[in-house]
């Protein structure tokens, strides 16, 4: 690790730890710990959502994918953005109105049944941990390449930091780490986009000309087909992406950090602008990589493309810019994993400990103590798992989490909010079938069963890398059939009350 790298690294370290210290001093209530007492503004929360959402896979992965695959790399980013419309129009405001800290609260508002709360909490934990592992593994590998740190050391450093933020600073520290990351990430990509464009007389056409000459694909670089060549896989992936975001617990709990529906709306709209503009800039970055670093060079150094952005930074601005971009990548990963730790933590400490084991009667001190212990436990577990999975391909876990979210949480939320006949049996059946379907399809699919590199060396039973197109309808069908087949169930919860509360924000407690 050279000196510039070290200074940037320390800067982020101290900056975030000071925030955590300030957060820890500020609030000692559960409201403060889980939801910043709803005191963030819409714009602040929008920045935090963007920080929670855009992982290293967005920054490094998509830039690399555009550089190596042209159009298809850019195309990949669209689903991540459009999915926010579903949140905006159907999910975000009702979730804010019905819940307090977790997704479990939202579902409980209708069914008042412990089993659904526990199930929702379990799927939240599964999604959060499954998402955390690939982030940490990628972080370890990246920091090894960028900063020259050992894999193990990188995982332990990032894992420890995310745990410290949540244990001491709760959602307050998490939110500000995410806001700062968004600002760093946006300024970093904006800076590099400007440098790239300035070298081509601010003309994207000249840049595209240079790109055309530098890639082996020539003109077809700008056409579809270099990444997605199987229509069924493509549709399945697009379906998973657009429906998955609305079920991701770490995004959903961010809506509890603002005070009312207008602020929720403002959060989502701010996030769509940040994320959208970011993807537009990654396009310029990706083109810049081809023009300045060279397609062949990137492909030979790193065929996954993850190093595209750092290589571009180093070609354009030498060690200094490279160090800055590495620091941005570090902050990017940190903000995402911290968001995942807090979502798993609130599920365990609020849903399972307080509401299930203590019937909602635990004291504030007890709740906070358990929340902190839980965060530490989750952090430690994630570190240990990630240390063990160094040499195993875990990137598919990212799309798996989207599939689980879309096939369990999305039907649950949509039916809870909008279907009067939906009942407890439907909710439970849907959660279980959706979860089992997505896990089984991955287990029997080519990510796990592959003659060359699979965990099981054999032909896959289900030849789909992206199981969404099967898993999501199964999740919806499970909820639907569970409801219909249970006959005239009385366990439909109090739909009238849910409707009034979710649509007007009326509170009756």
């Amino acid at each position, binding site marked *: 690790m050279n000196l510039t790298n070290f200074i940037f690294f320390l800067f982020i370290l101290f900056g975030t730890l000071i925030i955590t210290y300030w957060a820890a001093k500020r609030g000692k209530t559960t409201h403060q710990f889980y939801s910043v007492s709803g005191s963030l503004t819409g714009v602040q929360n929008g920045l935090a959502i963007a920080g929670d959402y855009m992982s290293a896979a967005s920054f490094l992965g998509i830039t690399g994918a555009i550089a190596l695959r042209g*159009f298809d790399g*850019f*195309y990949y980013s*669209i*689903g991540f*953005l*459009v999915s*926010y*419309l*579903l949140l*905006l*129009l*159907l999910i975000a405001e009702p979730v804010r109105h019905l819940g307090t800290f977790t997704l479990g609260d939202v579902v409980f508002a209708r069914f*008042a049944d412990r089993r659904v709360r526990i199930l929702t909490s379990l799927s939240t934990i599964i999604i959060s941990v499954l998402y955390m592992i690939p982030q940490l593994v990628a972080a370890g590998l990246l920091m090894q390449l960028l900063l020259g740190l050992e894999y193990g050391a990188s995982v332990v450093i990032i894992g420890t930091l995310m745990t410290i933020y949540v244990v001491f600073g709760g959602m307050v520290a998490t939110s500000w780490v995410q806001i700062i990351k968004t600002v760093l990430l946006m300024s970093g990509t904006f800076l590099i986009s400007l440098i790239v464009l300035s070298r081509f007389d601010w003309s994207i*056409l000249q840049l*595209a*000309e240079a790109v*055309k000459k530098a890639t082996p694909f020539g*003109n077809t670089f*700008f*056409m*579809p*087909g270099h990444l997605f060549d199987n*229509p069924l896989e*493509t*549709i399945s992936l*697009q379906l998973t992406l*657009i429906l998955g975001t609305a079920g991701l617990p770490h995004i959903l709990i961010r809506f509890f950090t603002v005070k009312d*529906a*207008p602020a929720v*709306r*403002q959060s*989502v*709209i701010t996030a*769509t*602008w940040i994320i*959208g503009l970011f*993807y*537009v800039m990654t396009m310029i970055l990706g083109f810049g990589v081809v023009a300045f670093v060279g397609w062949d060079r990137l492909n030979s150094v790193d065929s996954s493309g993850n190093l595209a952005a750092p290589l571009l930074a180093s070609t354009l601005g030498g060690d200094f810019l490279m160090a800055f971009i590495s620091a941005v990548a570090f902050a990017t990963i940190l903000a995402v994993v911290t968001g995942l730790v807090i979502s798993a933590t609130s599920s365990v400490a609020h849903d399972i400990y307080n509401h299930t084991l203590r019937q909602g009667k635990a004291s504030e001190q007890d709740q906070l103590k358990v929340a902190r212990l839980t965060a530490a436990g989750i952090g430690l577990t994630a570190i240990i798992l990630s240390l063990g999975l160094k040499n195993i391909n875990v990137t598919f876990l990212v799309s798996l989490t989207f599939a689980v979210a879309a096939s369990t949480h999305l039907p649950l939320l949509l039916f809870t909010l909008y279907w009067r006949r939906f009942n407890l049996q439907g909710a439970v059946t849907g959660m279980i079938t959706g979860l089992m379907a997505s896990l089984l399809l991955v287990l029997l699919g080519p990510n796990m069963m592959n003659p060359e590199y699979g965990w099981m060396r054999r032909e896959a039973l289900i030849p789909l890398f992206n199981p969404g197109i099967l898993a999501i309808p199964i999740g919806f069908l499970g909820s639907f059939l569970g409801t219909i087949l249970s006959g005239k169930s*009385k366990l439909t919860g*109090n739909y*009238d*009350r849910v*409707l*009034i509360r979710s*649509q*007007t*924000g*009326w*509170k*009756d407690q």
Partner: protein
Amino acid sequence: MCDQSGRREGKAMQSRSGEQLIYSESFQKLIREKKRFILPATISFLIFYFALPLSITWFPQFMNRPFYHFLTYAWVFAIMQFVMVWTIGFLYYMKAKSFDHKAEEIRKEMEQQGYSS
């Protein structure tokens, strides 16, 4: 007053239960107006979104036709997805102001009628 038996009793005795307000004119109107915006918006963005991968699969020649320099029709369609997100976001933002207003009136109405807020 908030559980199901409360609701049934409330209806039977024609007394005021919280849920009875669902039948109020102003609430029904809010739901109708929300539906009128949200349903078509959701359906159109889903159709527009899936139209991109489907047209790439079904009409590759057309989608690969140049539109402006290196930009083919597929690019235009892809960029339009961004524009669509921002446009629907903006339209909803404007539209939702009237929803907020109505929701607040309903909340006031409920308070006046004695449902604690």
